[in-house]
Structure formats: structure tokens, C-alpha cells
């Protein structure tokens, strides 16, 4: 239990600092000072202490339960990942649940912006295609779905990024999808205010932000573990910082794509990734 709590706190704090670092790098690319690196930490705390009230048009108790679900699935992610190094398939299940939470947080609110975002979240489930395809490719290469066995495989045969590079690129596109202010962030585009989070304000918003920072850390952790083999904790932190900076630079110089284009881009990447990897494996 202590291990779960410590890993949860590491994930929460490291995730918030990385998201803040992303915003800082994006601002610097756009030649402005940007917010302090710990801005996301301060925002999460600030929202946590603000008053929330429950709108009459919200679907209760679903409205509260969905925010708790997001936290619960990412606690499960922490257990599946750094603590027990369990099955990658369960991690895929957690991402599917995350998509469901995005959808239901929007539909449980009474706000039309929330409902629009709910629809877009279903639309952008195409982002889960690269993840699913990735699991197939990793399985075909390593013949296992258990993270600890994948680490053992990599300590013998070298990092997977060199043996299945297209899958690595595909997962990188997925990382961009899940990042803040990305070109695929149609569920949180400013044209729909805050998307599915619009009617979750105050404590609920702080709660959602806390869970999202854990999800960002976990996504980077999975990428580094599955593709770069056995790493020490310091290498994890360095790798996470480097990936966050690269993603921030990409996000800073690209506009948010229109929902149709966003979905088509992700499906194309999944297509190239899976069929390219299988062809490379056969050759």
C-alpha cells in the first residue's frame, strides 16, 4: 500500500511539473515568457479549494461518480504499471475507460459544450486505434503482454524502439493526442470552452486535473518502459522531460486540427504503423 501511495504522489507531482514544463516550452517557442513551471500545480490546488456546486441540469450522482472514476482508473494504472508491472492489455482497458470518462463527463453535465465534447470524444476514439495496433505489434514481436516480461525481453534483445520503430512512432502520435494544447485536442478545443470539463468546476475541476496529471505521467512511463527497456528512475525522469519538451515544441507550432482531419490523421498513422510494422517483421 505504501508503494501505491508513494508512486501515486510521484506520478501526481511529476505529471503536474511536466505539464507545466510543456506550457513553458510552448510559450518560449512563441517568444513570450509563459507561466511559471509549477503553474499547473498551483491551478490544481487553487481549484481544489474553490467552491463547487452541483447544477440542476447535471445527471446526479453520475456527475460526481464520473470524476471519481477518472481517479480510480488512474490509481489502477499506477498499480498495473510501476507497482506490479502487470499486463499491457489492462493498460489498454484503462485508456478505453479514460475515453469513456471523457464521454460521460460531457454527457452527465447539462451544458451544451459538455455534450458537444462528449460527441467529439467518441469521434476521437480513433486515437485508441494506434494504441490497440501497438499492443498487437508488441505482442507479435515479444510474444508477451506482461510488462515485466517485455522488460526482460529488452534487456536481452535491446530496446524495442530499434526493432519496431514504426510502432514507436505510432505511440508517439498517441502521446501527442493525449497532451494538452495538442493538434488533436478536439475534446478540449476553445471553441467548446472547456469541453467535457466545462460544468465540472471548483473541487471537481481540481479533482479532474489531478487525475489527468497522473495519466500524463503513466502514459510517458508506459512509452519509456515498453520501448526503451530497463531504465533507472533517473533515466525515466530525464526521458519524460525530453519527450515533454519535444511534444511541447510540436504543439507550439501546429494549430488544432478540425475534428475530421484529426480523426483521419490518427487513423492514417495507425494504419501505417500496424501494416508497416507487420511488413517489416515479415521481411
Amino acid at each position: 500500500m505504501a508503494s501505491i501511495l508513494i508512486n501515486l504522489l510521484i506520478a501526481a507531482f511529476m505529471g503536474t511539473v511536466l505539464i507545466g514544463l510543456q506550457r513553458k516550452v510552448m510559450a518560449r517557442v512563441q517568444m513570450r515568457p509563459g507561466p511559471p513551471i509549477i503553474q499547473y500545480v498551483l491551478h490544481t490546488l487553487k481549484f481544489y479549494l474553490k467552491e463547487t456546486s452541483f447544477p440542476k441540469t447535471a445527471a446526479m450522482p453520475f456527475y460526481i461518480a464520473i470524476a471519481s472514476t477518472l481517479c480510480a482508473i488512474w490509481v489502477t494504472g499506477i498499480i498495473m504499471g510501476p507497482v506490479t508491472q502487470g499486463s499491457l492489455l489492462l493498460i489498454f482497458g484503462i485508456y478505453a475507460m479514460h475515453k469513456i470518462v471523457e464521454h460521460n463527463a460531457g454527457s452527465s453535465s447539462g451544458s451544451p459544450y459538455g455534450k458537444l465534447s462528449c460527441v467529439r470524444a467518441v469521434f476521437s476514439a480513433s486515437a485508441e486505434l494506434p494504441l490497440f495496433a501497438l499492443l498487437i505489434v508488441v505482442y507479435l514481436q515479444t510474444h508477451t503482454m506482461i510488462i515485466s516480461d517485455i522488460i526482460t525481453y529488452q534487456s536481452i534483445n535491446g530496446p524495442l524502439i530499434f526493432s519496431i520503430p514504426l510502432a514507436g512512432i505510432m505511440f508517439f502520435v498517441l502521446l501527442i493526442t493525449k497532451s494538452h494544447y495538442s493538434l488533436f485536442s478536439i475534446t478540449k478545443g476553445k471553441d467548446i470552452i472547456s469541453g467535457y470539463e466545462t460544468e465540472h468546476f471548483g473541487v471537481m475541476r481540481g479533482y479532474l486535473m489531478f487525475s489527468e496529471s497522473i495519466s500524463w505521467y503513466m502514459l510517458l512511463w508506459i512509452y519509456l518502459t515498453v520501448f526503451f527497456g530497463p531504465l533507472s528512475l533517473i533515466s525515466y525522469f530525464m526521458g519524460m522531460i525530453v519527450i515533454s519538451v519535444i511534444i511541447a515544441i510540436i504543439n507550439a507550432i501546429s494549430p488544432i486540427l478540425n475534428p475530421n482531419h484529426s480523426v483521419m490523421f490518427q487513423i492514417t498513422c495507425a494504419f501505417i504503423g500496424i501494416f508497416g510494422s507487420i511488413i517489416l517483421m515479415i521481411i
Partner: protein
Amino acid sequence: MDKLKLFSYIGLIISIIGIGYALIFNLPAWIVYTISIFLIPVFLLTIGLIVMAKPIKDEEEERVFEPFIGY
């Protein structure tokens, strides 16, 4: 004390007892995972609902109990 505060306090006490129990005693793995998956979110939620800011008494009526304006 209104309903929200009451349920928050009950939830907080249950989650603290559960998490403390899992921390102190050596339990089978699946019990520890179940406790952490269910009670850690409840803990975070109830702490938030208890420490959140409170409205000024006069404004409470119009800020918290909003009129339904329909969409």
C-alpha cells in the same frame, strides 16, 4: 449539517480507516488493490468537499441553488 457535508465526513472517515488498515497490516494483494482503487478517490473527493470555500450566507441562495434557466 447539510447532506453533502455529512456524506463527505462519513466518506472521509471510512477511507482513512481503510487506507490506514491497508498500510499497517499485511493484507493479501487483491484486498490492498481493492481498497486503494475504491478508497483513494473517495478520500481525495471528500477532503476536497470538506475544505472547499464556503459562500457568504447572504449570497448562498443565489450562488448555490441556481434557478433552472433551461437550454
